[in-house]
Every structure is written in structure tokens, then in C-alpha cells.
């Protein structure tokens, strides 16, 4: 199968769905002529016209609000937030408006918010590095997707666009150009809420998503040398998350490590860990462990950022300790 980068896979999903479905349109800052800061929509304005690739003022709140309005009129808006950190400026219209419309008066809100999230591992600093799935995971009515592989990025994005609910699509900017992989041509979706067993194993389960799924696979390779056989679950979707797949794996391995790059305290990994600890209590041979970003802003200097971030070596060390528990 031909290989695409993570970013190319996203671009292909956008391009294909815009070709297929005239209701789909894009809005965001610098997405038309400029093609977006990561060039995800490069050339789109020429292909689809300025009506379907709408450059907006610097107005995150109104971007989300307007996308919501277009969605309830039956369009399929895809909003791009230039960096996911700036979604903080549109927190209210997401958590109070978009997420509650269907519950309150029955109107579907088929809205996708694409945003480059996560650390770059090159020092993008406190405001261009955050992973904010936990800001939103508590809000009923919002789905959250964080793809890891290029193939998933395409299939999950297509699923997100076709979903009748607001979906936050947290693209991993670290993987954009770094990760290349086989991506099926043509139309397919990866259903929201279904985890992938990224690597089967029997000694311990790592639950991760996005960039950390990538690092977890590297860590699994590292500890394989010590004859530790790790199962890596790539969650793919944060809300809804695939509790069954996780519990099935833990039932098999008896050991679980949850890895996420957001700040440790009250991160989404706490939810996963709490659920495993409760539901798999009798399966567990060791306490569920978490490995996450520190409880500090994400520093700009790469040396400090590295101290902030869990990496494959830290994951490997945590796995060794978990298996030895």
C-alpha cells in the first residue's frame, strides 16, 4: 500500500470528503491562500473556491459559534483552530452551546474542530504544545479523537465529519511530517470509540493515544529485548473511549500502564486508570500505573521540554518496574 505522512492522510481525508459532500466546508485562520500553518489545506481554495475554504478573522469564539450555526442548518463545517491551545478562547461555545444543543432541543450539530495539538519535542513553548483532551473530556456531548497512525488519521477524520455530533479532532503535530505509514486509498472510516491493539502482548498493557501511542510502541520494542512482551492499546478516541478493549487486554495481562503527555493531575489517563482499577480489580497483578507530563506549563527550552515529556525510555522504565512489581 502507498505510504502517506500523517499530515498527508489528513489532507486526503479533507480533500476527498469535500469532493464527495458539498455540505462540507472549512473555516479558520489563514487556511485559504496560506493553506494553514501546517499546510493541511494547501491548494484547497483553488480546488474548492473561497466559499468552501473560508478565511476568518482571529476570532476563535466566533469560529466555533459560526460553525455551530452552520452545522444546525445542515452544513458540515470543519473549523481549524490554528493551534489547539487557542481553543481556550472558544471554550464556552463548545462546552455550553455546541455540546448541549442536541440534548436540549434535538438538533444534531455535525461539527468538526481540527486542531494541531501536543508538544513538538522541539520547544514550541507553553502555548503551542498543550494536550487538552481533559479540558473537554468531562463535557457530555463532545466527542474527542486523537489519532496515532496516518491510516487512522484519515479514517477517523472521515468518521468525525460524518458524525452528527461535535467532534474535537486533536491532530498530533509531532507526527504530522514525522510519521509515514500505509494509508488505504478511497473511502473508509475508522469508527469513533474503537481502540486498536497496536501491538499484541501478554505481560502488560500500555494504554496510550496520539503521539504517546507512538512512543509506547518504541518502548515496547525496547523492553522486548528484556523479554517483556507488551500489549499496546491505541485508544484512538478519547470520548467515547473503548473501555471494553482496555479491560479485555488487562484481563489478559494483569498489568496496566496508562501513558499520556498532558499534565498528570486530572488528565484523561486518570479516568482510564480509575476505570481499570475498579472494573479489573480482581484481574490486576499490580497497581495501575500512570506516566504523564509533569504538572508544570510545558516549557520552551527543548531540554526542559524533554524533562516535562514522557518518552520511550521513561515508558520502558515504567514497564520494567510494572512487570517486576
Amino acid at each position, binding site marked *: 500500500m502507498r505510504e502517506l505522512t500523517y499530515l498527508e492522510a489528513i489532507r486526503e481525508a479533507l480533500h476527498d470528503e469535500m469532493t464527495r459532500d458539498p*455540505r462540507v*466546508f472549512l473555516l479558520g485562520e489563514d487556511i485559504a491562500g496560506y493553506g494553514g500553518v501546517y499546510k493541511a489545506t494547501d491548494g484547497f481554495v483553488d480546488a474548492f473556491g473561497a*466559499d*468552501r475554504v*473560508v478565511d*476568518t*478573522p482571529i*476570532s476563535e*469564539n*466566533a*469560529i*466555533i*459559534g*459560526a*460553525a*455551530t*450555526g*452552520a*452545522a*444546525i*442548518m*445542515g*452544513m458540515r*463545517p470543519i473549523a481549524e483552530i490554528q493551534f489547539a491551545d487557542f481553543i481556550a478562547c472558544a471554550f*464556552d*461555545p463548545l462546552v*455550553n*452551546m455546541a455540546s*448541549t*444543543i*442536541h*440534548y*436540549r*432541543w*434535538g*438538533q*444534531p*450539530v*455535525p461539527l468538526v474542530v481540527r486542531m494541531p495539538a501536543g508538544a513538538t519535542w522541539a520547544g514550541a513553548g507553553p502555548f503551542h504544545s498543550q494536550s487538552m483532551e481533559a479540558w473537554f473530556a468531562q463535557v*457530555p*456531548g463532545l466527542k474527542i479523537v486523537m489519532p496515532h497512525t496516518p491510516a487512522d488519521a484519515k479514517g477517523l477524520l472521515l468518521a468525525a465529519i460524518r458524525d*452528527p*455530533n461535535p467532534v474535537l479532532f486533536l491532530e498530533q503535530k509531532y507526527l504530522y511530517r514525522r510519521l509515514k505509514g500505509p494509508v488505504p486509498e478511497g473511502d473508509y472510516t475508522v469508527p469513533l470509540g474503537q481502540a486498536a491493539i497496536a501491538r499484541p502482548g501478554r505481560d502488560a498493557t500500555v494504554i496510550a493515544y496520539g503521539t504517546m501511542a507512538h512512543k509506547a510502541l518504541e518502548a515496547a520494542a525496547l523492553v522486548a529485548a528484556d523479554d517483556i512482551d507488551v500489549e499496546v492499546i491505541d485508544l484512538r478516541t478519547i470520548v467515547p473511549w473503548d473501555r471494553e478493549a482496555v479491560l479485555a487486554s488487562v484481563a489478559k495481562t494483569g498489568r496496566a500502564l496508562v501513558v499520556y503527555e498532558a499534565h498528570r493531575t486530572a488528565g484523561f489517563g486518570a479516568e482510564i486508570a480509575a476505570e481499570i482499577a475498579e472494573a479489573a480489580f480482581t484481574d490486576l497483578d499490580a497497581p495501575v500505573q500512570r506516566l504523564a507530563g509533569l504538572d508544570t506549563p510545558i516549557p520552551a527550552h527543548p531540554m526542559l521540554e524533554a524533562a516535562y515529556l514522557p518518552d520511550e525510555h521513561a515508558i520502558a522504565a515504567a514497564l520494567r518496574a510494572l512487570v517486576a512489581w
Partner: protein
Amino acid sequence: MPLTSDERYQLYHYMRQSRAIEDAAWALAGQGRLVGRLYTGHGQEAIPVGCAFALADGDVIAPMYRDMGAHLVRGIRPVEVFAQYMGKRDSSNGGTDSGLHMGDMARGIVGMISVLPDSLPVTVGVALAFKLRREPRVAMTFFGEGSTSTGAWHEALNMAAVLKVPAVLVCENNQWALSTPTEREYAAGSIADRAHGYGLPGVRVDGNDVEAVYEAARAAVARARIGEGPTLIECMTFRMRGHSIIDPADYVPAAQREAWAARDPLARQFERLVAAGLWDDAREAALVESFRVEIDDAIDVAAALEDPRPEDVGAGVWATTDAPATRLPAAALAELVDQGYPDDFRVPRPMSPPPADVLAMPAHAAAGADRERNDA
């Protein structure tokens, strides 16, 4: 296009009906029979009525909590209002939300949320959809002058102007935002003054003159419909009651309230109609009585509806299809009809006939009837 006699009456009709419903709701709220807190539009009725009246079939409106009249013009019936106010299972929000947070895309009504003025950016998006699809439709929304201090207001106005969407943005300047008078809300002379800074027309009208409001709205709707972009309309009015039913509003100077009481929009339109020979006390009495009957009925029917069931609580968090969910499935509707419940509960229809035969029925309210359920 001067208003016809019919239309002049209809404007009055809706204002009167709005007032009657809100008076009744006020009484019910006092008896603890409503869910949630009651906010009313007493004294401001000319604005939602005059503006909504300027819309056509297929247009979309996003009213705020004082805009009973806008709902009525769009075809919402008193029984729906009371079912909603009582949080009934088969009301717009089904008890998930309260007050005028009703939404119904079948009648082109966007349901508001409490956070102010979050319907505004949404309205810009509704209008953007019209523009992108080349549909000659208009979106309209309302907000208080206090809500103009929010960031959402600014971003939405600017985006509306830059994208030149067919939207009409109506400020109901009732001079108070809860206890905050305009001078503590903004230092500018007026909200309409801001329009220039967004590059869109801003007009200021007497918000207690329903015909003047209508005319301003009509012009703005016409502009929007032919692609000339959004208009900001500032309607000067006054909040004649407290912020909500629990607010005695003793911070409002008595002289100010009295001065505005003398400008009651209903009384003014009443006098106009009388002067034009279109109305008299007898007809008024009959109209009021017809509203009383209709509202009493509506309250009884609404009160008899089922309350939400605890097991409903989880329903509808997630959409499962592109089709809107409705609170009133066919089966439930049939059941209600068996109980003598009006069979057009969910269907917009002309409102109840006016008392005298001098005037034709307002056809306007029927506008929504043949709108499709979903715009997709």
C-alpha cells in the same frame, strides 16, 4: 411598502398575546408552578414582534429570553410555551432546559443558552450557511445592551461584517443589565454607534414603536436578502419588570420607570389602530377574552401533560442520525389527541382568530408550516 391595516393589527395582536401569556406565566411562577426562573419581556414586546414580523418563510430567528413575541410570530402556540415553562416531557426542551430556551429548526427557531449572547455567533453561522448555499434567506438574532460588552458579541459582529452574511442583529437596549445601567456597561453614546467601527450600517429606533421597529427590520432584512450584508439595529426600550421574577428592581429610579410606562408599546399601537378606525374597546375586550380562554386552555392542557421521567435523563446527549430528534413521537401525540389535545400541536398554524370580523386573520404565523424539517 406601507403596512396594510391587517398587518398593523397583526403587530398589535402578537404584542397583546405576548403580554397576556407573560402575565399568566408571571402568575404561575408566583404559584411555583414553573420550572426554572421566569424572565419576561414586559414593555419590550414591540421589538421581537416587529422584527420577527419582517422575516419570511425559511428565515431563521434566534430569540433571547425576553422574546416571547418572536416565538409567537414564528408559530409557537401558547400550549407549547406553557408545556415548556412547566418542563413537561413533551415540551421543546423536555425538561432538560427551561424558559424560552426552546429551539425548533422546523420553524426556524434557534434555542438560546444562558451564556450571553451565545446565539449571536451561532446566528452568524446560520447566515453563513445561507450565503454559501446561495439561498435568499436571512438570519436574525436579539441581545440586550448589556450583552454587547462580551467578547462573543464583538467577534460575531466583526465576522458578520467581514463575511458579509445575511444577518440582522437586534439590540434590545432596555437600559439595564440586571442592576447595571448603560453608563456602567458602555461609555459610548449608543450601541448603534459601534456599527461604523465594524463597517456595517447601524440604526437606532424607538423600540416601543412597533411599526418603527418593523420598518427598520424590514429594511435590514431586505438588505440582507439581496446580499448587502448585516445590519445592527438598536431598539431603545425599557425593562418594565425586574430582571427576573425574583428581582424587585428597586435600583431603577421611579421617575425613569414611570416615564417609560407612559410609552407602553401596546398602548401606542392600540391608539394608532383606534385612530385609524381599525380598533375599539369592544374588540379589545373580545381579543383579551379570547386570549384568556386560549391561555387558560393551554395551561390546563400543559399542566396535564406528563412530567419528564427519571429514565429520560440520559436521552439525547448524543445524536445518532442527522435527523432532528423530536420530543413528541407520533405515538405520544396520538395519545394526547385522544385526550382532546389539539392535533396540530407540533404544526405551526395561524393563531387563534381575532375577535371581530373586520380584520382578516394574520396569515403570517402560518409561514413556518411548510418549511421542511431539516435544512440539510
